[in-house]
């Protein structure tokens, strides 16, 4: 874990706005033994996963962290679970703040794993993708930061070793596929993911979309989501091992709208959790 030298020696006794967290010795002690951080899209999903890891159905038994912020977290032994919201901006804002806490607390060997949902591209719905490389929507394997008006693109390969450990931890008889592939992080759910059902009229045609999806498949891109490039580029720059485990909720080659039942959606989301938990058992 590598921190900005400008703040490295700062005394950790300040307020972290985006987490609504005042750093004190007690707070730092709480985060001092973290080995894994699981990042998920919504507070509901984080709560569900935390209960599973803590072996309880009673959410009141778990202490809610970062209350009053846009993010919700729980700590279960040496695992921190936290919601990241939707989109690269929400993700990267979290990563800066969270990494500061973990750095000052001494948790320098932590691994970050996003566990989430995605739109598959020519993949059977309900399959789980482990991301090798995250792509920008223009098919650049990178993430653009525009600091002070200057664009810089940072590399977005996920951790090879972590991915191998995750894949090897999966039993042979899982009732769904677990695939290593590339992912694309869009900055919008509708136009940014070639949908036709957004509020704004697309400039692209059905033909353009088909050509685009062919290019995605030619790059071994298996799924669309909205946070992988921010996660990969941040963790590469900060020297943190990271990856993404995401279940596909639909096949975007066939449809745009997610209209399966809540039960099916929940069962799919559970598959990504299963893959993550299988890894955690042997980590």
């Amino acid at each position, binding site marked *: 874990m590598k921190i*900005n030298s400008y703040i490295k020696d700062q005394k950790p006794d300040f307020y972290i706005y985006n987490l609504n967290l005042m750093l004190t010795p007690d707070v730092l002690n709480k985060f001092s033994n973290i080995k894994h951080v699981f990042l998920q899209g919504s507070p509901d999903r984080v709560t569900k996963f935390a209960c599973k890891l803590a072996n309880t159905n009673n959410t009141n038994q778990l202490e809610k962290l970062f209350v009053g912020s846009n993010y919700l977290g729980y700590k279960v032994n040496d695992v921190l679970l936290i919601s990241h919201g*939707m989109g690269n*901006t929400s993700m*990267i804002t979290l990563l800066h703040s969270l*990494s*500061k806490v973990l750095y000052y607390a001494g948790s320098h060997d932590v691994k970050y794993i996003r566990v989430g949902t995605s739109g598959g591209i020519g993949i059977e719905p309900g399959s789980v993708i482990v991301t090798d490389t995250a792509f920008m929507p223009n098919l650049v394997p990178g993430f653009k930061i525009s600091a002070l008006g200057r664009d810089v693109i940072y590399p977005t390969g996920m951790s090879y070793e972590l991915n191998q450990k995750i894949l090897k931890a999966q039993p042979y008889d899982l009732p769904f596929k677990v695939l290593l592939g590339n992912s694309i992080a869009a900055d919008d759910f509708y136009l*940014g993911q070639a949908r036709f059902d957004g509020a704004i009229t697309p400039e692209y045609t059905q033909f353009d979309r088909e050509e685009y999806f062919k290019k995605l498949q030619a790059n071994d891109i298996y799924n669309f989501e909205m946070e992988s490039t921010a996660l990969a580029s941040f963790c590469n720059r900060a020297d943190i091992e990271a990856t993404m485990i995401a279940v596909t909720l639909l096949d975007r080659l066939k449809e745009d709208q997610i209209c399966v039942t809540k039960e099916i959606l929940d069962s799919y989301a559970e598959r990504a959790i299963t893959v993550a938990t299988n890894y955690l058992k042997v980590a």
Partner: protein
Amino acid sequence: MNFEKLNPYIKQLKVDYLYHLGIDSSMDLSLFNDLEYIIFTRSDRDILLFASIFAKENNIREFKGYPIFKTERFHMYKIGSVLAISHGIGSPSLLICLNEIAKLVYHINRPNVKFIKISPAGGIGGAKVGDLSLVDLALNGKLEPLFHSIECGRDYAYSTIMDNSLLHDIADFLNKFDHNVLIGSAIGSADFYEEQARIDGFLPLTTTVEDRDLFLQKAISFNVKTLNMEATAFASFCNELMISACAVDVIVVDRTHTDVVPLTEDKQHIIMSNAFNLISKYIASKLSAYK
């Protein structure tokens, strides 16, 4: 909103699933038949605060403080003829919210609904903590009035130049309270740290303190008063659909002096409450004028 600008594909859908709102167009949407305003803010905490303040100001006794429909991603409250919704952090999250809310507005046939976004922001150019700044122009990090988007692999640039009629109406009203309401440009960034010229982020610095100060000075010369993470997306979306809209930035940090937001939760509550109070009064004055 000009429904003729709305994606015609929506109009021919048998059922439109507003997936993140948990609403679909086949449901009974008569709850929204009286909608006049939609208020957007970032966090679940703040939108409940707005909804509570508005309910109290307007004596809406049936408001109980429970969000409606799906609560996984956004929290939504209906208080009288106002819908209040939290949109999360950043343009990607805001755009999901705006797309589905705009489609909802179409399905309930209320084209004159007005959008007001009230968000925390960093202030420069004389904007002090606690001030409100109404955004008359949203700029990207290169100080252009554009929002960039990649669609089907190609780059598009949307104009952020909006009709500011609602802004001026709000400004006229707020000035009657003798409140120091600023009007200025806002920079919409895609991150809280590097893209807002902060030097206290976690990642290694790629710019110097001098670079930052030069950038902020240049922004001030463009009449920028605030920096936030959604300005350009909000402006370009509303412009595209000709929605009557206004963004109100609430300054929580004076960026000419510090990168660090100096307010703990209690002080943020006071500042946001003040902003929500003023906008509630504005809306109340308009609603009573309609009657």
